[in-house]
């Protein structure tokens, strides 16, 4: 029998976990507010949007593609859905249906351009980001929506516990969205047949076609799923921000990509885990939050984030090369 613990300790996730724990301990010791319940709730709330998107993007990366356009997709979805909510008397169900429907549709357009026309996924999604975002800015003239329906603003958190100082601790839409996105993604990737087909397509597209996988269907699923998740995440973000601004989200796509890559997903496809992605998001959140708590300028924080990503990707590549050279020697 293999030693499961030993197997795990060799994985990328294990190393990330160590780094995460060390960083967490460091921040606990050096700042007063990091390890408070309130800060953790704030973190979960403010990273709900990025975390959900990371879960969706993971699926696209595993399928061997890449998508840059999802922040623009989310912007369009939340603007349209909440404009409708402000104009007609509709509720959660309709708003969710509109936002996810728009996300799904834009994702499917990506998939058709990439899968059916065989265009490069990075070019297509950069172009789609500009098309969606440009149209949104043109039509809305960049106007924000400040007033959102009462039910949307107020009916999305549930107080669980109130402490002696009358501070309320809540479970909110952001946390639910986050947990739901990661659970559904994990289920899709590890427990469904089509989820395993996504891995196969990303691992070796030609071989996938040869064993009879309908590869285009996998493209539709992956990009469509990310679009749908982006639509849902856009509502989660708007609820947290309590307003909709057409240009608030675009620009955050690379942060999300960074978290997923940090979590061990390969840009070449076929590789990546939900657990790793969660760790990637946590690590990035801790870094940004920690630097803020330490009073470091936000420009430094941005620079620091970039360096951490370089470090992580470099370490991954080194590890790969080391493995390749040892297995090469065994083979000879």
């Amino acid at each position: 029998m293999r030693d499961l613990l030993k197997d795990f300790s060799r994985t990328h996730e294990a190393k990330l976990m160590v780094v995460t724990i060390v960083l967490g301990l460091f921040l606990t010791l050096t700042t007063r507010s990091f390890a408070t319940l309130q800060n953790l709730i704030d973190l979960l709330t403010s990273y709900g949007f990025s975390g959900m998107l990371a879960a969706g993007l993971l699926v696209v990366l595993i399928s061997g593609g890449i998508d840059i356009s999802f922040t623009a997709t989310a912007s369009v979805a939340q603007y349209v859905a909440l404009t409708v909510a402000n104009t007609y008397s509709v509720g959660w169900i309709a708003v969710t249906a509109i936002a996810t429907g728009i996300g799904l549709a834009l994702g499917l357009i990506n998939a058709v351009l990439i899968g059916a026309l065989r265009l490069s996924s990075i070019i297509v999604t950069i172009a789609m980001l500009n098309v969606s975002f440009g149209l949104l800015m043109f039509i809305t003239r960049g106007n924000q929506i400040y007033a959102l329906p009462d039910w949307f603003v107020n009916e999305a958190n549930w107080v669980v516990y109130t402490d002696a100082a009358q501070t309320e601790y809540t479970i909110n839409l952001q946390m639910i969205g986050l947990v739901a996105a990661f659970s559904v993604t994990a289920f899709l990737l590890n427990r469904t047949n089509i989820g395993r087909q996504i891995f196969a397509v990303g691992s070796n597209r030609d071989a996938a076609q040869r064993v009879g996988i309908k590869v285009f269907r996998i493209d539709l699923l992956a990009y469509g799923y990310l679009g749908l998740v982006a639509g849902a995440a856009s509502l989660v973000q708007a609820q947290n921000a309590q307003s909709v601004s057409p240009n608030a989200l675009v620009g955050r796509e690379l942060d999300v990509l960074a978290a997923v890559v940090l979590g061990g997903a390969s840009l070449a496809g076929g590789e990546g885990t939900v657990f790793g992605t969660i760790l990637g998001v946590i690590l990035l959140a801790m870094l940004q939050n920690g630097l803020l708590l330490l009073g470091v300028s936000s420009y430094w924080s941005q620079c620091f984030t970039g360096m951490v990503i370089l470090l992580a990707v470099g370490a991954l590549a080194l590890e790969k090369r080391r493995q390749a050279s040892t297995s090469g020697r065994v083979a000879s």
Partner: protein
Amino acid sequence: MPNFLELAGISKHFGGIPALSKVDLAIVAGEVHCLAGENGSGKSTLIKIISGVQPPDPGGRIVIDGKLYPHLTPAESTRLGIQVIYQDLSLFPELTVAENIAFAQHLRRSVGIVDWKQIATTASTTIDRIGVALDPRDKVADLSIAQRQLVAICRALAADARLVIMDEPTASLTRNEVDALLAITRELKRRGIAVVFVSHRLDEVLEIAERVTVLRDGVKLGTYDAKDMTGRRLGSLMTGHEYDYTPYVPDLSQAPVMMSVRGLCRPGEYQDITFDLAVGEVLGIIGRLGSGRTELALTLFGMRPSATGTVMIEGKTVVLDSNRAAIVAGIAYVSEDRLSLGLVLEQPIADNIVLTTLHRMANKLGLVSGEERRQTVAGWIAQLGIKASNPQNSVRTLSGGNQQRVVIAKWLATKPRVLILDSPTVGVDINAKDGIYAIIRELAAQGMAVILISDEVPEVIYHTHRIMVMDRGRIRAEFKADSISAEALQDAIDA
């Protein structure tokens, strides 16, 4: 035994050019059948028709188990028990052995839930059925090529194969691994599964095959009893030429030493490499993949400096710490992987030939005269017999053999004294191989010293003067080419 598969009058045209003309083929259930032919003979097209990837031209008949099909779809072909193991194996490197073997279970119902227990069971029973050593939990990316091939075979079995077609299965295997593959083939045969080997290197599989079908230029020459077939007869059938080689070793005892290598060592790659190379000599270095032969060649070309040891060219010690230094010292290297290392495929043939010598042709301003360039290129194209309609076409438009000649021309243009050829005939068909051998003989006769690295026994016996056998980083044995048989040399390599 009944026929499992019968093809009658199968033709296929691509844009008016015939790839197959009225080919008939019958595969008996449980037989081992070789399909032989050069590159471009129509082998691959035939496989694609059997596996349903391409439809044949109308008019042909495909009969499987007595049932007639005008053409097959990939799904039908799989359902009828036809499994193709492509040369690239078509596995999913990021997934485990078990999942690769039992992948068909993921295809049954797309929205279905994965039954991991069932996948583990299918994988381990399949592995046990043919008794191979594979851990179902390993990731395929971590396996050797031979192990990956076993995974591919297990996958075919798990899909209830009745006919397994293997495309060039022995191309990247060592002798021991080939033997293991043959043992498994016998096991498949015993279970009534037909096996078709598709190859242009058939010596190894001839011994267990029952019949051989030979294709040439899209036409079937015939199906022969494997008992009556020899590698040589097969070669002449495939090419339409008789090639008759005899080892030829000139007397080089008076020839001055061109290169002498003393005690080269690079930890983990090779140790204690010492040899002399005479003017006009062709030295063969043979060894398995990973024996250190390619690493040694790269050292002599300055790309992997040795830890200790010296290299002298015509009595003068040279420091080979970069490929530039090696080129200056008069050493040229034609890599094994000509496509990735030797050529800029998209660039014109002419530019590729002069690439290494542009600095020598340049005038004071660093500009190259077009006329001089044209003459140089025309000279090499004529001398090496490169079949190119226009030197301005990209190298990609040439056949494998002609691409290899362009690489050789590129290096000959540097006027080397020592030419190192690493597996120059891999992926080149027999006609083109012969052209390359002729070039090597000609260069040696002109006084160049040549090192020919190879893993093909006949190649070194018939086309070099002296043979060194490398294994695990050391020179294990040395022979004169005209005093050793192919069998004895093979034994020395496997020792």
